[in-house]
């Protein structure tokens, strides 16, 4: 029996077992990191499971007690002819509704929420270089002033496009700008300032977004009454 000279042609129908050829390949591949970290570990059962069970019970208990003592609102039957004043969306949309007070519906109802979701989704993909880079390694008043100016510029830009003065955006923007700039002027003295100075720019951007979102939602939920006029919950109650 003579060994025939084989020609290697890639053919899917051929049975790999009959072709005793192995091709080793070094492939660049990205996997998740599996590290054997030398730190204390515990058995999931019972330690984690027990804590989870406590969390489950605690949460359920909280919800049950809430439901026993607070009744869900139920107003009169829907009546398209009678518009309540103000007509409010669910609380988590009141930030958006508050925006509607300042910007045309296209901006407040479509562009901004769309941009926010897009921005949230892209966070992990554009963050690599800025990560863990402290904003301040030393006091730099010039740069701090620049930071402040940027904050004012952002607040100004938001205000230019609005038809009412956007205090719920201006105030948190300026406040975050000041917090950002503070270690740049004063240096990292004390725990708070050093903590602030060690934060990165993405941290502050997210913090700013969060402040604006919270302020808008709180204003929309608690401080808005008939005609979307400013009210104070301790005087007129919550609408």
């Amino acid at each position, binding site marked *: 029996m003579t060994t025939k000279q084989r020609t290697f042609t890639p053919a899917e129908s051929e049975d790999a077992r009959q072709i005793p050829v192995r091709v080793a390949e070094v492939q660049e591949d990205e996997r998740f990191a599996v590290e054997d970290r030398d730190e*204390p570990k515990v058995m999931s059962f*019972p330690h984690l499971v*027990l*804590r989870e069970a406590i969390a489950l019970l605690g949460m*359920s*208990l909280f919800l*049950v007690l809430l439901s026993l003592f607070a009744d869900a609102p139920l*107003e*009169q039957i829907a009546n398209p002819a*009678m518009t309540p004043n103000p007509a409010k969306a669910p609380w988590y949309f009141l930030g958006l509704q508050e925006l509607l007070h300042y910007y045309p519906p296209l901006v407040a109802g479509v562009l901004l929420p769309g941009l926010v979701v897009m921005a949230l989704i892209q966070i992990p993909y554009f963050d690599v270089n800025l990560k863990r880079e402290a904003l301040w390694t030393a006091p730099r008043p010039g740069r701090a002033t620049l930071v402040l100016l940027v904050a004012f510029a952002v607040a100004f830009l938001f205000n230019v496009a609005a038809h009412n003065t956007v205090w719920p955006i201006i105030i948190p923007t300026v406040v975050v700008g000041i917090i950002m700039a503070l270690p740049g002027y004063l240096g990292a003295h004390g725990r708070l300032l050093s903590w602030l100075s060690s934060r990165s720019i993405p941290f502050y951007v997210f913090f700013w977004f969060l402040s604006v979102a919270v302020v808008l939602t709180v204003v929309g939920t608690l401080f808005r009454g008939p005609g979307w006029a400013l009210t104070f919950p301790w005087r007129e109650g919550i609408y």
Partner: protein
Amino acid sequence: MARPTNLRYGLMIWTFAVLAVVFVASLAFAPAKSYFSEWRATQRQYNTVAAGIGVAPIDPGIQQIWLKELGVVDRCASCHVGMGPGDPIPGDPVFGAHPAIPHEPEEIGCTFCHGGQGRATGHETAHGQAEHWFEPLLERDQFEAGCGSCHSAIPVGRLALADTGRQLFERYDCLACHQVDGRGGGRMETQSMPDLSGVGLRGIPADWYEGHLARRREEADGLLAESFGDLEPTEVEAISEYLGTLVAMPRLARGKRLFHELGCRGCHVVNGVGGSEGPDLSEVGKKSVEELLYPGNFRAERTFASWQVEHLLSPGEVVEGSLMPDQGLTRAQAESLALYLLSLRRAEIPGEYWPPDRTRAERLGEREFGTDGQTLYQVFCAACHGADGSGRAHGVIFGQALPSLVNPDFLAVASDEFLRQVIETGRSGRRMPAWGGGEGGLRNAEVQSLIGRLRSEEPTAPTYDVVAAAPDDPTAGAALYAKSCAVCHGANGEGGIGPSLRSAAFQDLATDRFIHRAITGGRPGTAMGRFRELDAAAIRSLIAHLRSLSERAREPVDLAGVSAFAGDVERGQVVFAASCASCHGAQGEGGIGPGIGKQAFLASAGKAFIALSYSRGRCFDAAGTPPPDVERQGLSDVATWLVERGGRSAVEAAGRIVVGDPRNGQRLYAKTCAACHGTNGEGKEGPALGNPEFLAAANDGFLQATIIRGRGGTAMPGFNRDQVKVPRLSAGEVDDIVSFIRSLLGGEKEEN
């Protein structure tokens, strides 16, 4: 690997155990809360009370009346046990029996009448005091408002007649035998006579009076024989009208009547009919208290009724800037009205549940209010124009004075068409709503009734026979002519705004009867108004004076005897269009020449008059050129067409068109009229003349006549005589002003 410490295993186990127990216990709370519900407690209480007086206890359970087609789920009997599963406990406010009512609760449920929340099973929730429940339980003194859910159109009747009927009913002591709303019936202890409380809904037998008479004849010595007297037919009608308003809901009927007496519908729509100035009240009774805005200083309890009462008593204090006039109501009246408003809560129910009043109104198109002129006037006009039509000083509220409708000068120059058009289309920019067609909801015949009501304010002119028999006094005739006629017809009847009265043609053709008719009926569409205030002698003297103006001896034409004026209708139309329409309008409605297609004119004139008017030379165009040549047969045809067809023309309102010089008119207007009517007719103290609806309704004749005669009782003077501060306008000047006012229609700016 280092063994982990500080895991606090024991603590965790205990936390878990305690939480588990607390959680399970808390879960048990919800069913317990459900079990110890209010209705169960109430039923236990019933059983306790029942045991005390020997009434059988009931098995616990929710009781409900469920009527699918009505959408009723009423669980009231779960607590009001005496009205449901258990025997009533006498005198108990909760467990007592339901008072006698004409309806079976099993058939219509509870909430249609009482309001409240039928599905609820607790005291506060069921009685509708809960937040966000728009329909609270009706108070004891308001519960008739609940009737309005179904009885959406209880009849009000003809107001004055029903009033008379009520007085007669009392005067003839019908209450001796019959009961009405719990009153009367005392004498009929042995015999039962029908209770008349709800007879307006059940229907009144058309022959009730004849029936009574028949029984009176039958019973020689019965009560009826001695107590039932004879009635006039008008009295029978009045009593019938009154009976029609008895609907077994006396308080509601009173409130509704008051609403109509005060003329609230003048500004408010109810069931599709009413003025558009105020809010539509058709379903105002469904309004929730939360929808009402209470002023900070609101004193009374915050209910629908209290809001309405306070608002009715002083509208401006409850609703800032409210346009509603303060009617000076008493509190009792306001409460009565509030009850009616609360009853405006028409519920959607299947047709087989409709009560007769609703069927009559909504299926058969009958009105809830009487449709005679007087009632219509009161219901729709009185609130603004005053109960007697003399106008009302609502100036403070509406920012404008409301005109008097019974002003004799106004009625004399305003034609029926003018009145109809103003009523139907309203006056934009003013508080006068449009009542015609779909807007205000008044029907054609109803507008006609209203016009009739206004016309009834005019004096009745003496008939021709009376005039003919009256003595004539040439001096009085001349004085009267100088005062009332000369301004248009010239001092010697030579003509001006009006036609020449001395011309031979006029004198020959116009019979005394024709002149009488022209004086008392006016000539709609021209400046010739009615002079109804003249008595027979005055008219007789005036006719005599007119005759004395004649250029020559009168040669009366025997119009009635002329039989030759038989023409062809079709040809007549062609000839009219070719030769006459340019001046008299395509349908004879009037143009530069007078309207000769009007029923009123044709009735007094006749074919021969028309034909001969032409041939005797009364026909000239504005420049005085003789008319186109029309042969005799053509004249007959035109006259035939006019009499037979022209009078039926729909085009009535335009009237005669005045040809004047608007530039001169503007100058005169600025001098004489602008002070009151505004430089561009926008209105100041006087009404706006540039108003499109006004200009559409008022023809040139109306404008001329108003300028000349003025409007007695208002600031509008007549410009026909020399007075201090009021210049005398010549016929030409009046025409110029009219032309200028006409030009305001296009909203043209003042030309300088």
